[in-house]
């Protein structure tokens, strides 16, 4: 507890010295809040088909000629308000990414801790699976899982489970980093006196792993979690962009970009560029935060 508190205060000091991190934190916070509060702050609900009209289709942002004050960032080809679509899209993208990250974290840390603690054959099997996984690009794994689920689930069910499938696809392509980090840390910690003492006191392995080892590897895991969150957002966007993610009637950021691609050359730039910029800003901000956290938890880098 003392240590954590010390770190935190040091963290705050470092934080105040790093304008990039500060800015990134503010941007991330604003976007996350906007996404969370979308149902209350968005001007319209883009999922409610009756709330928009094709008559308002393809209106430019308010600052361009022909813009409409009702649609600050313009409208898309169906007459949906871009701002609302982006807020709702970010909400979907962020929640899928966060869920995927949480699943990957639990799975990866669990397997990594166990592998590191027990060693032997279990360790070998888990780590070989991880190696195979690392050899495949994340997007390929995700596409594979999506394809398999499409093949085995009936169509109606697949549509209903779409978000779950995508979450799982992303999670299964991201767990390896957590597992490797957890395992490596366990190797370092396992031979330290406090762990040996706990073992000699006859404590249950589960308790040793969770109560003694895990708290000591929170730092590196947090860094990975942050960076992987950005990867998860990008992965989801890529899947949706390629058309295997979320459908056009409940668009995530990637789906919005896919829709906007049709207008890349035709002058309706806002349909593509606004969600794309939004995605870039979000991912860069989260990565900057991850960078900052890495520096914080790894004093040798400072």
């Amino acid at each position, binding site marked *: 507890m003392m240590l954590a508190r010390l770190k935190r205060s040091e963290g705050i000091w470092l934080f105040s010295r790093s304008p990039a991190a500060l800015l990134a934190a503010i941007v991330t916070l604003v976007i996350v809040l906007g996404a969370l509060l979308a149902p209350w702050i968005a001007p319209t609900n883009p999922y409610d088909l009756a709330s928009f009209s094709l008559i308002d289709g393809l209106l430019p942002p308010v600052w361009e000629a022909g813009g409409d004050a009702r649609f600050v960032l313009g409208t898309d080809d169906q007459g949906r308000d871009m701002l609302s679509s982006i807020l709702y899209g970010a909400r979907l993208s962020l929640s899928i990414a966060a869920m995927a990250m949480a699943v990957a974290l639990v799975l990866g840390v669990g397997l990594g801790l166990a592998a590191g603690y027990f060693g032997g054959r279990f360790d070998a099997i888990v780590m070989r699976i991880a190696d195979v996984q690392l050899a495949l690009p994340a997007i390929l794994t995700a596409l594979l899982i999506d394809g398999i689920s499409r093949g085995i689930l009936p169509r109606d069910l697949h549509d209903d489970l779409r978000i779950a499938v995508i979450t799982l696809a992303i999670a299964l392509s991201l767990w390896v980093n957590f597992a490797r980090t957890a395992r490596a840390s366990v190797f370092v910690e396992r031979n330290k006196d406090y762990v040996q003492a706990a073992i000699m006191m006859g404590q249950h392995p589960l308790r040793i792993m969770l109560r003694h080892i895990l708290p000591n590897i929170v730092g590196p895991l947090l860094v990975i979690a942050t960076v992987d969150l950005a990867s998860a957002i990008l992965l989801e966007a*890529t899947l949706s962009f390629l058309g295997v993610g979320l459908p056009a*009637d409940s668009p995530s950021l990637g789906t919005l970009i896919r829709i906007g691609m049709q207008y890349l050359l035709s002058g309706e730039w806002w349909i593509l560029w606004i969600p794309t910029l939004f995605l870039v800003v979000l991912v860069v901000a989260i990565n900057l935060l991850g960078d900052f956290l890495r520096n914080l938890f790894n004093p040798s880098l400072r």
Partner: protein
Amino acid sequence: MVRMTFSTAAMALGTTLLCALPVAAETFRWAGTTDPQTMDPHAVNAAPVLSFLNNVYEGLVRRGPEMGIEPSLATSWEALPDGAGWRFTLREGVTFHDGAAFNADDVIFSYERAISEPSDVKSWFASITEVVRVDDFTVDFLTSAPNPLFPGSIANFMILDADWATTNSADLPARDAENHATRNANGTGPFVLSSRDPGIETRLTPHAGWWDSAQHNVTEAVFTPIGNPATGLAALLSGEIDFISPIPLQDVEQVESRDGFKVLAGLETRVIMLGFGHDHDTLKYSDETNDTNPFLDPRVRLAVAQAIEVDTIDRVIMRGAAEPASQLLPAGLSGFSDEHADRPDFDAEAAKALLAEAGYADGFSFGLMCTNDRYINDEAVCRAVASMLARIGVTANVNAMPVRGYWDELRADNFDMYLLGWSPGTFDAEHPIRFLAHTPTERLGTWNFGGYSSARIDELLEPIQQEIDEAARQAMIDEVAGILQQDVAYVPLYTEPLIWAMKDSIDVVQRPDNFFMLRWVSVN
């Protein structure tokens, strides 16, 4: 930071490395949204297939640049006495791509293949009772009653070599499975299928022994399906391909403004419409658990028609290039009913009132099946329709899918409402009546997926096919058009625009049926 840069770069690379083809000077490369599902001329009666195969196979007659019927494998034809049928005199000295000679046996074989159970083109021969081989180069098509339109209705009836099909066990068309004729072809047409990679690339080379003199100067033609029109346009602008159809409507202006490219625009003879599950007792894709099908009530169908603002769809989604439609065929075609040229006015209030009258004041939800790579902006139109229906309280669950599996889904009745585009192959009002309005039977109503049925229309089809007097025929067609509108059997939306883009150096002929004929292509 390092990790992020890598993964971002990897993803960016993954999405941009989609197209990189070498370009040879004498080769003509063209692209379209839909790959022809099969190379079998009798397996799928759909424009992408027939259009493509018209370059490889030929019929007894063919259509010229202005859609006129001209001799092809038949040099002439005449009506048999007493309306007993038609006699075709076949062209001598024609060879198939593999060198085999063409004669009456191939016509008889192709006819039998085209009326076989798995064939998708049976309805072309609904009026034919028998085909008789008179001699090596004369064939009689016997009809049960006079059929004055018959020669003009079989321009897409393609002849394949009997020996070739039998040797390769492709005696019958393979609609759901595959056989030798699915990926290989042996026709008499101006181009030979030299390689076929479904969904990827199809190559054609000129047929050296073609009976007609070539008007094209293509030495090799390569077709690549590009599902996303924006990607296709980028391929055209970067010089990778020479021709594409269609391009996104929103891009017409900027393609025209560029040096070295031109756009050919017009109206296709295709009407885009919505169809209903007339013979479904219940809705398949409703969120509520009720056990009725509201679309059985004509008031509900009329409400759907009245809730859709076709003018707005035309203005925003089709950029003003479409033309609102009132019947199953576009205005101006032979048999178009001028009496019924009005479509129901847009009136959301009246639509709501109709729904309330039918007992659906609180609305209902249903599944709308839709293609996303077949017609121009098809998915966007479906979403717009869903949004417009939401205004009268009806929720459409849109399921947009590639056309590859679409017809199978419709044949399996997996829809409550569906999107359909129909281009009358004969350019006459009788064609959609035969395919879309007649009660489905073995040979008729074969694309009437919803099973719409009207005894009066069924009764009128044959007289319409046989009547020679223009006015009497038109009166019957008018009556059918009236019944279809009265029943709201379909909701015709608009006439599909034709939008071809190509390099300035390419000359083509744009036929209103959107068939792309390589024999008129010249690369300058």
